[in-house]
């Protein structure tokens, strides 16, 4: 079995797992805990990983179970799921159903979902870059750090940085063109 390098593992997959989780639990701290637990569970069951799926898919399958467990815990704290029906006479029951089926304030749901998929597609494409390239690209593009700060951190010149950014953008554009834009 190959030796697992936890540093590389976290650098490669943590952001993907984070974005996957954050839209589902809507709470940063909970998301961070779930991801931490996912990696630990992954480490424990590493020998069960058969390599049939990609490593990321396998981690996501663990994460999904963690998310479900999380919701189970919340629900059991609350007792049964509650449904409030405010209508008094039976005739208006249909109205209630209709109003609750189409939520006029949830116009953005579809958009959010598409953006989430796009985000995950971008992060998946980033896995194809080497760690340093991906790290620098993310710091610059997603976290919005200064060129100067990144150069200092990695001990590279600005022109080095722009070469790395250029390669990353090119590879990313190619990958997205294949997997997303079409």
């Amino acid at each position, binding site marked *: 079995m190959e030796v697992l390098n*936890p540093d590389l593992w976290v650098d490669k997959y943590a*952001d993907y797992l984070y974005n996957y989780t954050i839209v589902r639990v809507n709470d940063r701290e909970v998301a961070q805990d779930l991801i*931490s637990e996912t*990696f630990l569970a992954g480490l424990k069951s590493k020998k069960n990983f058969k390599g049939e799926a990609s490593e990321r898919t396998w981690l996501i399958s663990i994460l999904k179970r963690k998310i479900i467990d999380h919701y189970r815990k919340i629900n059991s704290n609350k007792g049964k799921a509650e449904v409030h029906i405010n209508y008094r006479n039976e005739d208006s029951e249909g109205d209630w159903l209709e109003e609750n089926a189409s939520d006029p304030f949830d116009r953005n749901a579809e958009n959010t979902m598409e*953006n989430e998929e*796009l985000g995950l597609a*971008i992060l998946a494409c980033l896995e194809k870059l080497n760690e340093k390239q991906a790290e620098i690209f993310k710091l610059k593009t997603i976290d919005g750090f200064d060129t100067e700060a990144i150069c200092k951190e990695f001990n590279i010149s600005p022109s080095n940085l722009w070469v790395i950014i250029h390669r990353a*953008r090119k590879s990313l554009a190619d990958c997205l063109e294949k997997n997303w834009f079409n």
Partner: protein
Amino acid sequence: MNMKFFLKCTEAVNVCDKSQYEEATFFDKLLLRIHLLYCSLCRGYSFRNRKLTQAIKESDIKTLPDDQKQLIKERLRQAMANQ
């Protein structure tokens, strides 16, 4: 002062990259525009580059904060040591 009005493709592409991060000067952007008038290869690159910037913006990706990453790495290292 450097008074050349025609960028090489490598320079044009560099200005194009920088302008995705608002780090190109006004003058450089002007030179890029001139270059794009006659260079279809860089026009294609510029189009794709802007599309990528837009996609990243729309996707609203977040990164897991670095201290959290370090924490997870530390926990993994401990778990491995105890295995």
